[in-house]
């Protein structure tokens, strides 16, 4: 049966392959660790190297399991389920959250959170017809957590121009 997904959406295969790359970078970086203070073979780099080696073995087992399941056709159901999952929704939320983090200090808690919550409502499909309701809810959520963090728990939240 032909695959329902483009190859880059094949998370079951792509994820362990990415971890292969990450482990290789990790292993290479372990050779940069200074061992000036150590005596004997068990130095600061020893455990990371063992972890990397075991990781390679575990990833081989993971890929073997994926290959076996595909051969037996058992992965078709999971594939169909994954094809039904939306990837653009999470990608938009990640991009929005990254923007929120960048804007958090310059815009201050109040403005950045208000915009963030409103945008989240939009992305999560909250009451498309009532703009006013979204605004009111966004103001309420921003205010509630401002009171919780700033007033009750004395957390110094960033303020734009020292006011908001």
């Amino acid at each position, binding site marked *: 049966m032909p695959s329902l997904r483009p190859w880059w959406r094949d998370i079951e295969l792509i994820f362990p392959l990415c971890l292969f790359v990450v482990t290789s970078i990790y292993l290479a970086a372990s050779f940069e660790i200074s061992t000036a203070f150590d005596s004997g073979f068990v130095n600061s780099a020893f455990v990371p190297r063992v972890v990397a080696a075991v990781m390679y073995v575990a990833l081989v087992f993971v890929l073997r*399991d994926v290959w076996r399941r595909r051969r037996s056709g058992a992965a078709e159901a999971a594939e169909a389920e994954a094809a039904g999952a939306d990837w653009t929704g*999470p990608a938009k939320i990640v991009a929005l959250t990254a923007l929120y983090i960048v804007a958090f200090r310059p815009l201050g*808690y109040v403005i950045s959170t208000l915009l963030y919550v409103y945008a989240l409502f939009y992305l999560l499909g909250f009451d498309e017809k009532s703009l006013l309701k979204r605004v009111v809810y966004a103001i309420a959520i921003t205010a*509630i957590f401002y009171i919780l963090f700033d007033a009750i728990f004395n957390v110094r939240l960033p303020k734009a121009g020292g006011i908001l």
Partner: protein
Amino acid sequence: MSDYLAGILGGFVALADPVILAYLVIGFLVGAFFAAVPGLTAVLAIALLLPVTYSLDIVPALVMCAAIFMSGMYAGSVTATTINIPGAPSSMMTAIEGNSLMRRGEGANALGHAALGSMIGGGIGALLLILVAPVTADIALLIRTPGKFSLVLFALVVIVIAQRDAIAKGTVAALLGIMFATVGVDVMQPVARFTFGTELLVEGINMMPIIIGAFAVSEVLVQASMRGASRTVDLEAGAIPRIRRRDFLPTRAEIREIGWWTYLKSAVIGYFIGVLPGAGGSMAAFVAYAEAMRKSRRPQLFGKGSREGIAAAESANNSMCGGAYVPMLMFGIPGDPTTAVILGVLTISGLQPGPRLIETQLPLIAPMFAALLVSAIVLIPLTLFLFGPYFLKIVSIRRAPLYSCIAVVALVGAYVATYSTFQMALALFFGVLAFFMRRAGYPTVTLLLGFILGPDLEQYFRRGLSLNHNDPTIFVTSPDSLFFLGLTVFFFYFMVIRPSRQLNADEADGTNRQQTP
């Protein structure tokens, strides 16, 4: 011992302080809410509480955690019974029996039995914790460095093999956690590792962004990925009969039929499964349920609305709460995901787990023990009585505002840790990582446990070797180490090798039968 008991009594007195009592009740209600809403968990509730603990005193923070833990374990039974969606994985068995009763119009009675089982099990688990803790601490003092290494290794292996059908993925997740734990200054030497030239990573990765990312941010992403998912969990109109408070009370005849022995045995099973690292409430509930079915006079009722099944499962999973505290407090080894986060609260507050913790910090720890007991025997029945009829409405909460709140608390909470947006970025990074892990079927909890246990594993291994002139045989010649290594082999055999052999034998048997005409 008398000093210890006086200290424990002091813990109950501390709960009488109106402020601490308020935190106890708020924690219980928050835990119940999070566990009753499908998709949210008590672990998420404590993860979101974690940043707040920076501003809280240690006693209210730990009291709140204990209340969330106990109520979270109990309240999972609410949606399990009413809409057949377990609010927590540990309520799976309750869903089978409770929902069968619900469909017969006896939902309130099923909720009553779940509450009674949780109350008895939670109470026994808390009492066992209080009584056994000093003995466990004395035993823990006997374990030396090589033994500690083997104990941590045992914990990690059990955590991984508990993922029965995904052991390779569990291993990958645990190793990934250990890899993240090695970032920053080495545990033994003043050497920076894996900082990739940035000073931001010299101090290592804080536990907070990992917890918040893995449990809160990833949950928001999962919700966003559900194409066409209902924006609320709506109940069929008219499907639920009007519930009166007296309907919740189990009758004496029903309790007699279940038998006190079932409650007691299930609670003890749950407690000891809780002590095992990585086992958790689901395994406790399943083992106690299976044992109750094996010994039941009416096993034919199991799967069709057995009150005995509900009592066994709920007693065990709530009793597990007490057991899970033991390895966490004595060795810093979390028994389940919730205690992993509670361990974060402890360390953020400057408390170091260890055999001497109870002896030296009893005034801080005793209120937490007392909170577990009070949550179980007072707040569980009280909550059901007061809020039982409204439980059904919890599941109809709109998801967009709920998950927006979670996103804001999570990210602002990550900022609070060091007043740095770098922590927020890390929380987002771990959220994305956990999202992909969940999508690909990797256990995110194992990532967290690997992160927590990794530094101990490395430290005890290297210290054990350096104390013995780099001679690795110390790990098999030291009696305590040998004991834990033997235990590791024992568990590995019974949880991995034997079931696999049995499966192969069954398959071969099936093939032979097919071939024989």
